[in-house]
């Protein structure tokens, strides 16, 4: 019995490939199995090659797996494209007509005429994916009744004829497998836990996390790969008393957030890199006017329109520094789907408590991936709220009062005695325009001291995840979704006899100095894997801590692979006794 199963289904977009993967995930999640998926999206609006990779495991995982145990191909193109990723002793389930002449000898191969069964026996090509599910049911030991229940649920609305059609397709898939396929491999569905799991995408987790944190007003503009956040909220937020407004562009979205947050309460927008670029000016306004806002950026390949359906982590510097002037903001980066939920809640807590913009950085791969999360996730969410006062001492309300905590009490519009103006111009405590030397200095310091206060806030503690041997001399620092492959790489390196440790800060501004300094002080080599060309996190670490780093950058539009990181670890370990700065390349 394998504790882990990495399976990929590949075919043509429109063949129901994704449905097979999702069905498998839904059934497995109910069995309490841990799941992480990865899928590619064709750049075409319709058609094109597509695949979904599903990793099922007995234990908690954060990565979708590198080499495949089980590959399912619905056509020749999919086979040619994906076969190199299959393990030498892996299992291949493919369309019977595929040409396998170049196939490695160690594979276990099952050939099924999916196309023929669907078109000739059932008379409907679109039921091909259900035939595949039937075959898989036999090969992996998926309980038939659970697939049936799932199909019934999915097709019930389409009427009895369609439902019967699909149940027939399932049965024919099972029959064919039972009669013609002799199970020769040892792969089965991994053992599940006692507790059923929730299955959601990163985007859904963000939307859900926002709703659970009391989001009232959402403004957004369609953009791949962040649109699902707005779409989910458009359906569900009104049910809990919130409002969703689609604006005419991203500038309007972020400015509406500013208006709604000032006038009413928790507000948010979601976008991708091009949208964050447009929002940059207003990030400065939110910082200057001290208005809470949550901005989610699901990064994609850039610059410009770039690669909308591909992943990249190249907006870090934009998130950290975008907007002119000394503009303050908090930058958070979740590392998994369940993290998307909690970090979004944290974003609201920090934004409200400290009255500033908070940017949550995810990326296409994390936004789109399905992952299992524990239902207990919603317990003990980070809490933080806006300090509002009931003025009324007869004096003019000082919206930007300098206080010990650097947070000035706010008053919602309409509060008697709390009338005030928030402004993007430099201002004194009353909000009057002021450009004298003292005021600009005092107010700039005030805005930045909030970041210092956040560093010490209990809300911002324990935001670093660590793996590996804490005495190891090889250190890895990474961020966001690259954490998954790093976690795997540390484990693989250990098996190779190389000791390494990793740290992943989920807060990137302000940096968790205490933990990072301790980590960086301990290790002799610092590898920084990330999905951008510049080495943006490495740049930040070098400029902040004046340490040399070994960069591991990748701009292929796909996530890092553990083997790439292991290679760097092996290289670094070979140099542990060499004392030379030449080890460190310019870009890393």
């Amino acid at each position: 019995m394998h504790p882990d199963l990495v399976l990929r289904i590949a075919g043509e977009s429109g063949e129901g490939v994704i449905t097979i993967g999702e069905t498998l995930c839904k059934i497995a999640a109910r069995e309490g199995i841990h799941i992480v998926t990865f899928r590619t999206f064709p750049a075409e609006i319709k058609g094109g090659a597509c695949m979904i990779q599903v990793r099922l495991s007995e234990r908690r995982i954060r990565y979708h797996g590198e080499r495949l145990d089980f590959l399912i191909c619905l056509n020749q193109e999919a086979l040619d494209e994906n076969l190199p990723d299959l393990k030498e002793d892996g299992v291949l389930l493919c369309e019977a007509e595929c040409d396998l002449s170049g196939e490695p000898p160690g594979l276990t191969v099952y050939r099924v005429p999916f196309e023929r069964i669907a078109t000739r026996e059932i008379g409907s090509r679109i039921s091909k994916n259900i035939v595949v599910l039937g075959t898989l049911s036999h090969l992996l030991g998926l309980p038939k009744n659970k697939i049936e229940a799932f199909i019934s649920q999915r097709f019930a609305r389409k009427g009895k004829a369609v439902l019967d059609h699909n149940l027939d397709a399932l049965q024919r898939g099972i029959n064919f497998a039972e009669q013609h396929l002799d199970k020769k491999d040892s792969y089965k569905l991994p053992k599940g836990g006692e507790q059923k799991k929730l299955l959601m995408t990163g985007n859904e987790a963000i939307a859900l996390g926002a709703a659970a944190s009391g989001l009232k007003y959402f403004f957004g503009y369609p953009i791949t790969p962040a649109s699902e956040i707005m779409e989910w909220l458009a359906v569900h937020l009104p049910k809990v008393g919130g409002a969703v407004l689609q604006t005419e562009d991203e500038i309007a979205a972020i400015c509406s957030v500013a208006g709604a947050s000032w006038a009413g309460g928790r507000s948010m927008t979601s976008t991708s890199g091009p949208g964050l670029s447009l929002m940059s000016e207003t990030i400065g306004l939110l910082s200057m006017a001290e208005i809470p806002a949550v901005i989610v950026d699901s990064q994609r390949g850039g610059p410009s329109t770039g690669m909308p359906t591909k992943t990249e982590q190249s907006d870090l510097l934009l998130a950290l520094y975008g907007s002119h002037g000394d503009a303050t903001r908090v930058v958070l980066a979740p590392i998994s789907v369940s993290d998307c939920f909690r970090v979004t809640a944290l974003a609201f807590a920090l934004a409200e408590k400290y009255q500033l913009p908070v940017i949550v950085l995810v990326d296409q791969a994390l936004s789109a991936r399905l992952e299992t999360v524990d239902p207990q996730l919603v317990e003990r969410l980070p809490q933080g709220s806006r300090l509002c006062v009931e003025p009324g001492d007869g004096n003019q309300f000082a919206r930007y009062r300098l206080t010990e905590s650097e947070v000035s009490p706010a008053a919602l519009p309409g509060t008697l005695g709390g009338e005030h103006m928030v402004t993007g111009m430099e201002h004194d405590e009353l909000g009057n325009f002021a450009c004298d030397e003292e005021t600009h200095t005092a107010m700039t310091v005030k805005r930045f001291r909030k970041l210092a206060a956040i560093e010490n806030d209990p809300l911002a503690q324990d935001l670093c995840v660590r793996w590996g041997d804490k005495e190891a001399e090889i250190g890895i620092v990474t961020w966001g979704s690259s954490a998954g492959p790093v976690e795997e790489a540390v484990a693989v390196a250990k098996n190779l006899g190389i000791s390494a440790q990793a740290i992943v800060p989920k807060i990137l501004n302000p940096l968790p100095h205490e933990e990072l300094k301790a980590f960086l002080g301990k290790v002799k080599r610092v590898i920084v894997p990330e999905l951008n060309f510049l080495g943006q996190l490495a740049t930040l670490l070098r400029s902040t801590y004046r340490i040399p780093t070994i960069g591991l950058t990748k701009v292929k539009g796909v996530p890092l692979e553990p083997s790439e990181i292991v290679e760097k670890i092996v290289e670094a370990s070979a140099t542990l006794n060499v004392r030379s700065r030449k080890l460190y390349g310019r870009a890393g």
Partner: protein
Amino acid sequence: MYKVLFNRHIGPNPDSFLLPEPVLDVGDYGAISTKGLTSGHQGCTGCGMVTGTNQLLRALKLTGKHVVASIGTGCNEVITTQNTSCWGDVSVDHNNFPNTAATLSGNIAALKALAQAGAVSPKSTVNVGIAGDGGSYDIGLQALLAWIARGEDGVYVCLNNQAYMNTGIQGSGATPYGTNTSTTPFGKVIRGNQRTQQYILDLALAAGASYVAAACPLLHRDLMIKAQKAAAIEGPCVLEFYSVCPEGWKSDTDVFHEITELALETRSWILYEAERERSSNTVLFTLNYAPKKYLAISEYLKLQERFSGMRDFPEMVERAQEIIEARWFFWKPVLEANGIEWKEEARAS
């Protein structure tokens, strides 16, 4: 405001009081010598945008000028940039989502400067900006209206498929009332898009466009006349094409013809044009198509699943009909001059 005049004649109109002679009517032309969008694009089956762009380019090339296109992000960009050879001998500048008209301005200014410097012969190019409804009604509106306000000589085309199809069918300013999109979902409380669609040509005319026209690729003769007129008339000219989208409208891929016909017969898409004489600020309106019999909007809703929710709510269908009647009322003088009733009830009785 402007003085309004109506052209009594209903139908395709190659003549213009702004032009010394009529443009070519391809109906009279026989085989069309020019090439439009060629093979290699990745438009979905049944896409109206591809046909519209094809006819547009063929018509613009009938002027004998070199076509320089500025295209904004959107479906049209996605499906024509993976294999750019589909543009043939058209020079194309892809810019950001908000900036189609601003880029068009830059193209026009540069070619003007080059012509003044003697580097290219004046009037040897026709500059066209092509964007979708999201890029025109929403994010690109500011650039479009500013371009019109500057009075530059060029053509702007909005390929209107009535939502953001490229990013997953989100509603736009051009989305009709009651439509089910991913951001205007049809639910029990809020039933689809609650807003009435905007009309870009109304906005363009108010901003000072020299020529505006609504067309559809089904009536290619009319579309190609309009494209040529837009290229010939001095000043900013704005065209809007009805662009069938099976993916976003949830319709079959082979009912392009039927859907467009229904749009015309129900008057949910009105073919018209308006030409402005700038010195007297007079606008001449021409209706290019009047249905023989007015069909009820409920007929139009049938073939498209994006309207499946509202079909079951008579009050919503009625509201959609009211929106149409209110717009059609504008054409009353022309209809009366041709002995056509403007209201269906009057005609039926």
